[in-house]
C-alpha cells in the first residue's frame, strides 16, 4: 500500500483529479486529499508538497476560486471552488485522458 502511494501520477493528472473532486463540491485542501484517498481506496495519496502548489497554480490560472470559510467543526479553512473556466478545463482533460487510456489499452493488448 505504501509503495503504491509513492507511485507518481502522470503529469497533469493531479490537476484533473482535483478539478473532478471540486466539481462535486467545494472543499479545503485536506478535504481534497482525503476525498482522493477514500475514492482510490488508499492508492492515491497526494502529498501536501504537490497539493498546495497545484492549488495555487490553478487559482492563478483561474480554474479554481479560494475562499476562507468555517468548517463544520468551526475551524477557519480555505475552501476551493471550481470556476467555469475550470469546468471547461476539466472537460478537456477528461477527453484527453480517455483517449490516452484507450491508446494505452490498445498497446497493452497487442504488444
Amino acid at each position, binding site marked *: 500500500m505504501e509503495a503504491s502511494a509513492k507511485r507518481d501520477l502522470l503529469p497533469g493528472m493531479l490537476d484533473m483529479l482535483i478539478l473532478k473532486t471540486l466539481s462535486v463540491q467545494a472543499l*479545503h*485542501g*485536506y478535504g481534497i*486529499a*482525503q476525498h482522493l484517498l477514500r475514492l482510490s481506496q488508499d492508492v492515491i495519496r497526494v*502529498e*501536501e*508538497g504537490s497539493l*498546495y*502548489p497545484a492549488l*495555487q*497554480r490553478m*487559482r*492563478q*490560472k*483561474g480554474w479554481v476560486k479560494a475562499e*476562507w470559510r468555517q468548517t463544520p467543526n468551526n*475551524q*477557519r*479553512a*480555505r475552501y476551493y471552488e471550481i470556476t467555469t473556466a475550470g469546468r471547461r478545463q476539466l472537460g478537456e482533460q477528461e477527453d484527453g485522458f480517455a483517449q490516452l487510456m484507450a491508446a494505452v489499452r490498445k498497446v497493452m493488448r497487442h504488444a
Partner: protein
Amino acid sequence: MRELIARLIDWFHRDRLDRELAEELHLHRQLLERDAGGLAEDAHFVASRRLGNATRVREAARERWSIPTLDHLQQDVRYALRGLRRSPGFTATVIITLGLGIGANAAMFNVVDRLMFRPLAYLRDPDTVHRIYWQWADRGTTTTGMSTQYARYLDLEKWTTSFSQLAGFSERELAVGEGESARERRVGTVSASFFEFFDARPALGRFFVADEDVTPRGADVAVLSHAFWRSEFGGRDVRGELLQVGNMRATIVGVAPEGFNGVNDANPPALYVPITTFAGSTGTSDSQTYFTRYQWGWMHVLVRRKPDVTVQQAEADATRAFRRSWQAARADDPAYPPLESAKPRVAVSSVRPGAGPDPSLEARTALWVTVVAAIVLLIACANVANLVLARALRRHRETAVRLALGVSRWRLTRQSVIETLVLALIGGAAALLVAQWAGAAIRAMLLVAPTATSGIFGDWRTLGITLCLTILAGVLVGLVPSLLSARDDLARPLRGGVRGGSSEGARLRTSLLVVQGSLSVVLLVGATLFVRSLQAVKGMPMGYDADRVLIVNRIIRGIAFNDSTQQSLRRTLLATAQALPGVESAAWMSSAPFVSTSNTNLYVAGIDSVARLGDFTYQATTADYFRTMGTRILRGRSFTPDDRFGAPNVAVVSASMARVLWPRQDAIGQCFRMRSDTVPCTTVVGIAEDMVQRDITGTKRYHYYLSIDQYTRTWGNGMLLRLRGDPALEAESIRKAIQRVMPAASYVTVQPLRDVVQTAQRSWRLGATMFVAFGLLAVVVAAVGLYGVIAYNVTQRTHELGVRVALGARRASIIRLVVGQSVRVALAGVALGSILAFALSAWIQPLLFQQSATDARVYFVVATLMIVVALSAGAFPAFRAAKADPNTALRAE
C-alpha cells in the same frame, strides 16, 4: 497572459499569501493528527511524517507568487532610496536639475504638439486629410495663403480628380443671441460636407445637409457645439429653437458631440452654420457674387485625398485647377496679374497651419524654443552625470570591495542605473509640476486662446513623452559612472586610500563640463540676441502712442445698412464719446493698426506701375484721427470737417509714401488717383510720420489716409478714443456709456490698442523671454556643475595641496591653481560654444529684428559673463583650500 497578471497581483500580496498558506498547512496538520487518532504523541509523529518537510512545501507553493526579477528590483530600489536619503544635498540637486530640464521639454512638447501634430478629435483617417495652401509670386517673393474665394473652391471641386471630399470653412466672430445675452462668439461657417470628414455623430438632432448648403444662400440652420449647448442652453432639447447669429435667424437642428472642435481645437467655434448661408447674408454686394467672382478671399479649403493618390499627384492636380481658375479670375478682372509672373501653385499640406508650408512666427519660435529646451535637458543630464560620477568616485573603494567580494558587475551596473532611474522618476514628477506651471505661461504666450482643458495632467501624449524623457535621462545618466567603473582595475582603489584619484574620471568630467559650458554659451548668445531684438522691436518708432488709445468696434444689428442711418449713428457715437469726461479725443476709422488695412490700385502721373513699388495701404478717418493716435503731421494739415462729400478729395500720406512717389519734390499738392486713372484727383494735403500698420519688421511704410466723409465704400466700423487714464481700467465704463446710445440689437466692443500692439510683438517677446529663462537656467545649472566638480577636486587634492603649503606655497598661488582650473574649463566652453553659436546663426537670423546673429559684441558679453561665473564657482573652494591647515591634510592617513 491572464496567469501572468494573476502572478503579478499575487506578488504584491505575497506577504498575505505566505500567512494564509502557513495557516492552511497548520490546519492540514491538525486534521491529520485528529484523523490518525490514538496517542497524541504518536499521532503527531505520523502527521509530521506525512506532511513531510513543511518548509519545502511552503517554498514550493511560494514559487507561485514570487517573481525573482521583481524581488531583486525591489531590493535595488530600496537600496537606492536608502542611499539617496543619506545624501540629501546630492538628491535635491539632481531632482531639481532634472525636474527643470525635463519639465521645460514637457511644456514645450505640449505646445508644439498642439500647434503642429496632435490629430484632431473625431477626424477620420487623418493622414489623408489636408488643408489647401495657395501660393503665388508677388513681386518676386512667394506668398503663401490659406484664404481663398468661394468661386475658387467651386473651381477646385470641379477641376480636380484627386480628392474624395472637399469642404470650405471659415471662422467669424459674430454676435449670437439677442438683447442682454447677445455676445460675440466664434462661428464656424462650413460646407455641409465638412462634417463628413469626421466620425462624429451629433449628440442631438443632426448636422446640416447638402440641400441646406446651396448658392446663392443656404438654409437658416445652425449646429451648436457641445460646450456652447451646455453652457447656454443647459443641455436641453433645443431642436427647432431659433437663434440670432449675426444677420441670420437660424433654426437649431442639432448639437455636435462632446469634444468636437472642427479643425480648430485651440479656439473652437461655439456653433456652425452653412457656409453659403453666411456668405449669402452679409448684406454687402459680395453676398450676390461670392460664388461667381474672385474678389472676396475669406475661406479655407479642407480636402481628403483619394486612397490611391499621393500628395505630389494631388498637388499637381490642384495646381492645374488653380491655374485654370486664375485665368478665369483674370478674365473677370484684368487687374489680376498674369499667370506667367504669378506662377500660382497649390500645396496640399497639414490641416494644422503650424505644420503647413508657411507656419506662423509663433509656430517657428515654438520649434526653436523646443530645441533650446532640449539643449537645457542635455546640460542638465551632463550635470547630473557629473554629480553621479563624483558620487561614484567617492564610493570607489566601496565598489571595489563589493567587486572583490564577488558582486557581479552587471548587478552593480543595474544598481547604479536603478538609482538614477529612481532619481529621474522623482525628477519627472517634479517636471510635471514645472510643466504645468511654466506651461500655462508658455501657452498663454504661444496659443492665441488657450482652452480650459489644456493642462498637462490628463494629457496622455505629454505624459507619455515626459515618461520617455525621464527614463531616457535616467538610463543615460546611470550608465556613465558604471561604464567607468567597469573599466577600472580592481586592486588600484583598494591600495590607493583617500589619495587615490582617478585621472580617467577627471578627464571625462572635465569634458562634460566643457560641453555644458559651450551649450550654455550657445543659449546665452541666443538670449542676448533675442533680448536686443525685442529692445529693437520695442524701441521702433510706431508712429503713434498706443498706450492710452482704446479701440471701439460697433456691431450693427437690427437696423438698415444705409448711408443716412450709418452717418447719423457715427455722429451720435462720436458726440457721445467726446462728451465723456475720460475721453480726450475721438476719431472714426475704417480700421486700426494690426486690425486691418485696405488697398487698391493707385495711379500717379509719371509712374508706370505704382504697385511695383510696394503695397500702398489706406484708412478712412475723421479729423481728430492724428491727435487721437498721437501721430505727428510733419507738414501740411490734417482733415477738417470741410473735407466732406462733394468737396475736392484730399489725402494725408505717410512720409515714406511721399518720398517714394514724389522723390525730390514737395508731396503737398500732388495728385493721385484711386482704382482707375480716369477718376478725379485725390490731392495730398498733409504728410504724417510713418506708422506701423500690420508688419512690425516691414521696411516699406506706404500708407495714406482719406477723409471718411469723402470715402463711400465703407461707413467705417468703429472709433479710436484717446483716454485721459489707463484704458485697461476705464474700458468697461466707457463701453457701458457708449452702449446706451446703440440702436436696436446693436452693440459695441472695446479693446486697448496697446493689447493689439503687444500681440503683434508677441513672438519677439516670447523668443526673448524663453531664451533668457532657459539661458539663465543653463548658466545656473552649469555653474552648479562647475562648482561641484572644482570643490570635489579640491577635496581630492587636499593631500597634494597640503604638501604644497607645507613646502612654502603661498595662498595666492594655491588660489590661482584652483581658480585657474575653473577658468580654463570656462574658456574651453566659450571657444566651443562660440563656434557652435556661429554655426547656428544662419538659422536664427530670420527670427531676429535689426540684430545681426553674428554680432561680436554679443559674443564678448557672453564670454565675459561665463568667465565671471567660472571665477566665482572656483573662488569658494579655492579659498577653502588655501585656508586649510596642512597638518590636518597630511595627517589624514
